[in-house]
């Protein structure tokens, strides 16, 4: 149950950018969340509706862009998804590295000025 704290952080970040710009209302937040980063499921919208009450972000919609985990084999350069051995499906090498899926950022906000 860390979604509440995460939405509080999210609200602080959004307001920090919207308020100096003289924004009247934040309508949408575009979030980019990687599969390997902190778990953020759809319950976040519920917490968001709660923490944003009475702010210029009240009622805003959270839009998630989900980035799947991706690994790259350092021996044969094959890109592949998460598996339970962290092993290259093409050549069997365990010499692999994470290439995507750790994203955890607020990309942009849509506003009414």
């Amino acid at each position, binding site marked *: 149950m860390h979604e509440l704290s995460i939405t509080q952080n999210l609200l*602080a*970040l959004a307001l920090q*950018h919207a308020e100096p*710009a003289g924004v009247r209302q934040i309508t949408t937040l575009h979030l980019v969340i990687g599969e390997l980063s*902190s778990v953020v499921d759809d319950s976040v919208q519920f917490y968001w509706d709660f923490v944003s009450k009475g702010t210029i972000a009240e009622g805003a919609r959270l839009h998630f862009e989900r980035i799947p985990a991706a690994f790259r084999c350092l021996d044969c350069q094959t890109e592949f998804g998460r598996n339970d051995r*962290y092993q290259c499906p093409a050549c069997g090498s365990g010499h692999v590295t*994470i290439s995507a899926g750790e994203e955890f950022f*607020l990309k*942009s906000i*849509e506003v009414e000025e």
Partner: protein
Amino acid sequence: MPEIDIVENIMDANDQIAARVRQQLDAAGVLGLNLMASPGAGKTSVLTATVNALKDELRLAALDGDVHPVDVEKIARTGIPVELINTGGDCHLDANKLIHALPTLDLSQVDLLLVENVGNLICPAAFALGTHFNVVIASIAEGDDKPYKYPAMYRGADVLLLNKIDMLQYQEFDLDYFRHGVEVLNPGLTFFPLSARTGEGLPAWLDWVRARVAERRAASEA
């Protein structure tokens, strides 16, 4: 509709408070360690074994993120100052809770602050505290697949302890499989297999702690 580009980490507000925690620790010459693990991996056992081994040579203090003071009472029996950070049911500590707990300790009298996080391999990984090192404590009892299930926790570790190695003879645990998962997520991660119960492997971990405390002290005197 107008759009404002942001592209900043969602945890920015927490990270800013974590930076203030770090400043306070650095100003006082205190090394802060954030101990994270699943429930039952042995956070409190490792903490008390570490305290008992080092309390005659270093000035120690502890903060325990929990909902119940049972671990605080165990730590208090070692004789060092310890305070409970009651998380009120939250599954993790965050920088804000830590910065409010720091004034309960006299940091000018502390070399090493051990922060015991809430037992959980998911949520604490998202919240930087401002401590200097993330210490993840795995254990034989919880199985060898945890680096594959909870990558963010292992990805963010600065040092990894594998506790309860005295149980290796009783439980199937593929050490190579475990270590491979760790190596992919966090290449070259400092690793200490040990048993808080028997003391096996403890000296290498203690030497690591001593070296980090000495570095911190040197940095604050510079």
